[in-house]
């Protein structure tokens, strides 16, 4: 199995642990990642100029197509934006013509059918839970995990096609594979507040706080994320703005799975998480 790896803008510079953990588990699971130089997916500029945002995504997709493998991104905001681009480029002839006229100058072309996958989809749907399960050597027993879905991969379902938007199971299934227990928490599908961080910190923080308290009440040992922005929000931003909130650490999904696959915590960038997770007896590390 082979994927074009699209880490987006933030992972290499701001969350290298996500990169390390992702590469770690993919290596352990025997999936190849192809690196290449990409531009931004355009998600941040969507507020300002939808077409510029979709052009950015289209260029990424066209580059991936040139390499000739499906694209995999660990970031849910990148995933969402890339899927929006596919949707709109497929729907809107004017947009498609304009975008391809620009891409043509670089001998690139957007065409329908380029597969965009999020890390979780690759694991559950492409590789399969059974294959992941057989690779687990160190089940993370007795850990209670609150799976944080992340908005931009999940909604709007008709565009992003991630899972059932009302009752998704992909994340819980993947947590179960590691041996940990997924807790049921009412706000699991809600927003972490990250998109408003630079814009309105009061609301952003309020949304985050609600989720943390909710996860705490559900008895979670950790919040598990699968998105660059969510992790940044629940880890670094949380530490700076909500020092008194329940001390639930945020762990990236590939870090959790990596431990179950027997990868050393350092190889997963666990030490780079700002809020360290100190596991109880049952779990490693």
């Amino acid at each position, binding site marked *: 199995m082979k994927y074009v790896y699209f880490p987006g803008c933030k992972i290499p*510079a701001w969350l290298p642990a996500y990169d390390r953990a992702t590469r770690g588990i993919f290596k352990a699971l025997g999936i190849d990642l192809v690196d290449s130089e990409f531009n931004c997916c*355009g998600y941040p500029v969507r507020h300002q100029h939808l077409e510029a945002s979709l052009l950015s995504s289209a260029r990424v997709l066209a580059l991936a197509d040139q390499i000739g493998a499906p694209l995999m991104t660990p970031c849910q905001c990148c995933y969402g934006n890339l899927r929006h681009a596919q949707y709109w480029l497929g729907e809107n002839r004017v947009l498609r013509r304009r975008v391809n006229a620009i891409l043509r100058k670089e001998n690139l072309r957007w065409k329908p059918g380029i597969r965009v996958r999020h890390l979780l989809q690759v694991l559950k749907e492409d590789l399969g839970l059974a294959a992941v399960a057989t690779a687990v050597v160190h089940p993370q027993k007795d850990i209670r995990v609150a799976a944080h879905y992340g908005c931009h991969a999940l909604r709007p379902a008709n565009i992003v096609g991630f899972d059932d938007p009302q009752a998704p199971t992909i994340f819980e299934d993947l947590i179960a594979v590691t041996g940990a227990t997924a807790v049921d928490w009412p706000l699991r599908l809600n927003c972490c507040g990250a998109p408003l961080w630079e814009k309105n910190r009061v609301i952003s923080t309020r949304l985050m706080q609600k989720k943390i308290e909710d996860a705490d009440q559900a008895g979670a040992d950790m919040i598990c994320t699968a998105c660059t922005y969510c992790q940044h929000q629940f880890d670094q931003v949380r530490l700076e703005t909500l020092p008194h909130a329940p001390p639930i650490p945020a762990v990236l999904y590939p870090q959790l799975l990596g431990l179950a696959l027997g990868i050393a915590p350092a190889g997963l960038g666990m030490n780079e998480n700002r809020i360290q997770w100190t596991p109880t007896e049952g779990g490693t590390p």
Partner: protein
Amino acid sequence: MIFTISLYLALGICVAGILFRTQRWVTLRIGPETDTLTVGARITAATGQTIRALVSRRVFKLIGIFITDVLLQLNILHQSFWRWIMHICLFYGMILLILMHALDDPLTRTFFPDYESTLNPFLWLRDLFGLMVLAGAGIAMIRRVAGHRLRQMTRAMDTFTLFFIGMVIVSGMMLEAVQIVSEPIFNEMVDEYLDEDDEEILAPLRAYWASQYGVVFENPVDTDDPAVLAEGYETHDEYCISCHSRPVSAFMSYPVARFIRPVARRFNRIRMDTWLWYIHFLSAFAALAWLPFGKFFHLIATPVNLLICGSRTTDTVSPAQLANRRALGLDACTHCGICSLHCKVAPIQLLIDNITILPSEKLAGFARHVRHRHGSEAEAALLAEGSFICTDCGRCTEVCPSGIDLKDIWQASKQDLRRQGFTEAHHWIMKKPAHEWAHLASERSVASGPSFKKTFPAIHLTDRPETFRGCIQCTICTTVCPVVEAADDPARELDLTPQQIMNLLRLQMADDALGARMVWNCVTCYMCQEHCPQGVRVADVLYELRNIAYRRFYPDTVHHLDSQSISHRPKEEAPEAAP
């Protein structure tokens, strides 16, 4: 006389300019951390750092960087082979010309006592170095014209710099060519070294020089008689040969000399060599005087920056060092454009017509901005627009061959722009209530932001009745919205709820929603859109409203909003997020 005066004048300007520019490295303030630093503290930090580096083991590292990045310029080779060839040609061609040719008296003659500018190897070396410079400038020109992206980034400064270099080299080559054919110079040399008026001796010498050295005489000289030439050679051998190699070695100027033979007599009569000499040395001195003020200054700033940033170790950088580094970084940019070729948001610039989205242009714009040299606040607002589109991905820092820590500069510059009132839309939109935006919008029905191409967006939802036709005002979108839920008093804090916005749009009153705080505080969670029983694209519509507000208001209106909050003094509080 003119030569000496202009030389010292140019040197004076050059030294003063260098002092002026280098003092900025410890006085310019970039970023909030630098507000309280005194110049004294920054000078102390700079000297302390230098001394520590020179007396510790780090000096070996510095030597290493000097060899790889300054002398061999492997950092450029890493980017592109042709770019490297270009820069090596320009750099070494110029440096060697300056050392061997411009400084021949104080330098070359010291190391080579037999030095004569008309003697090999110096004669052909000079032409070789000249050729290198011309080749480098030629490659640079071709790259800038042929590469679409580079052409777009090329500024007057780049063209002017190449023109300046070309002027010095071409005038030098022309001068040499005219000197080769010059009879007056021949006569002067004869007067000086032979002191002989005997035609019996001079005529054969003339014949020999006309045939072998390309001198063109006013009265035709017979160069066909071998006996005469042999006679000429005897005199030549005695007096001239020790200082004169044959000019064919000047492989660049000699062909020019051949080429101008038909007009050589006229040139000799008007002493073209003197004119060209003036042009040559004056343009060279002008370049010298201009060095600190234009692109040439990177000759000094870039190596310094490479050494300082390259020697970056794990030690934490003190605020004073950081401040100096940022100011130096602005000068170290060679405007090579490599960062912009790799910038992750560069494709956005194809649709948002704002060149400061590209890092090389953003850096130049910011440098002007901090030196208080911006033409207008609208220009600063454009710079802010470009700056906030940057995603801080750090790619430009990785590729910059001058070793500038751009990532750090962007963070500082964004903070400075913010506290000067040039903020992201989410902040400036809060400065007016929704109804005032509605009023402003009614006055400008079309896109007015200077950075927007005037094409109509391919995707447009808000102006289509079918987008809202299904809405039954059931308020589900409002009920599921986490932002509405998080507000204590939604009517006061958010102006409108999602459902009310959909209603306004149904009534074709989009202008009234443009400045509503609900639109700008939407967290883009898509809960509303997912739950709407009628399939209304609520969240997409809110996105579009923000897009429309940008098109209409940004950035030319930003600086009119609140003139008091906008100034070039970075002393004010950062605008806090709206409640």
